[in-house]
């Protein structure tokens, strides 16, 4: 047997895995830095439509989010299947939008109020009636800067 054991010189050396933790840590730090924690827990379906003429909203603290869409399956029993509006973390009615905008304005510094933008994150399957109601409410409280949040892509993809 010892005859075979002696011939250990020709074996492949084991690959060192000592740097594996470093590689994994590098990935970990990337994801930790890139992660944005969600501000609101979505209670609605939110498949945004696509568009290519888009602008980026760069000042995140100056954006007010209004979500709309069908309640997701967890809430379908209590909230119905018709498209609803979500403000912060709960379902809301169209009439609540004014109070929401005023509360958001009150929480910001006064000189920043004119730069506030309203981002409409509306599900693609929603009827325009609801969106029109939201827009007329926004007009009434002079929140005129809006942004239809979309994903990037060809506009014709919306029709499929």
């Amino acid at each position, binding site marked *: 047997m010892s005859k075979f054991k002696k011939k250990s010189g020709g074996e492949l050396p084991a690959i060192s*895995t000592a740097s*594996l*933790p470093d590689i*994994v*840590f590098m*990935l*970990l730090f990337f*994801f*930790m830095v*890139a*992660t*944005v*924690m*969600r501000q609101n827990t979505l209670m609605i379906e939110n498949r*945004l*439509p*696509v*568009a*290519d*003429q*888009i*602008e*980026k*909203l*760069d000042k*995140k603290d100056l*954006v007010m989010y209004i979500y709309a869409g069908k309640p997701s399956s967890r809430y379908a029993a209590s909230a119905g299947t018709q498209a609803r509006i979500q403000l912060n973390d709960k379902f809301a009615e169209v009439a609540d939008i004014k109070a929401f905008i005023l509360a958001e304005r009150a929480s910001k510094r006064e000189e920043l109020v004119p730069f506030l*933008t309203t*981002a*409409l994150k*509306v*599900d*693609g*399957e*929603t*009827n*325009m*009636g609801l*969106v*029109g109601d939201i*827009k007329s409410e*926004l*007009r*009434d409280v*002079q*929140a*005129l*800067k*809006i*942004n*239809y*949040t*979309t*994903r*990037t892509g060809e*506009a*014709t993809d*919306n*029709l499929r």
Partner: protein
Amino acid sequence: MARRAAPEVNAGSMADIAFLLLIFFLVTTTIETDSGISRKLPPPQEDNVEPPILKEKNIFVVELNKNNDLLVEEAPMELKDLREAAIAFLDNGGGKGADGCTFCQGAKNPSSSDNPTKAVISLRNNRETNYATYIAVQNELVAAYTTLRNREAQRLFGKSFVQMEKDVKDVNYTGSKETLKEDIKKIQFMFPEKLSEAEPKK
């Protein structure tokens, strides 16, 4: 004193711990979309204001019905043709004399718009129109304006309008931002975004 060497900590499980954390962050990461089509709503109006009188030929009517069909000037149209049609309408320049347009390259059809500054696109949708369809149409109409503005900016200032707007936001831009802002205003004045949204039909 017998000095004992400190026992070495086994670092073999470090990779496992790091993997665990990595997987947690992988799962919780949602790449937030924070870009979209920016628009400005018209300010609220009193009821007794008379609407301004516009010539019929200066209005480009785009209508979306409840079955998501697109009607342009009362004729059905495919979405992919809308951008071209809107460009042709805005760039027509059919006016004469004071209404004329010196930079338009359109067909100069007397029955279409006089001047880009007078041309109005009117978008009307039904309450049952799909939001995705509406966004697609908005996108095409904004694209029509952007195409024309790019063309004129290229001709007058040697770079596209999109690039000019990017430069204004760029902190490393070397030229004068004041003149750049003036130039942007000039282009916006040539092709003002006159996109009117009518109250939806019930």
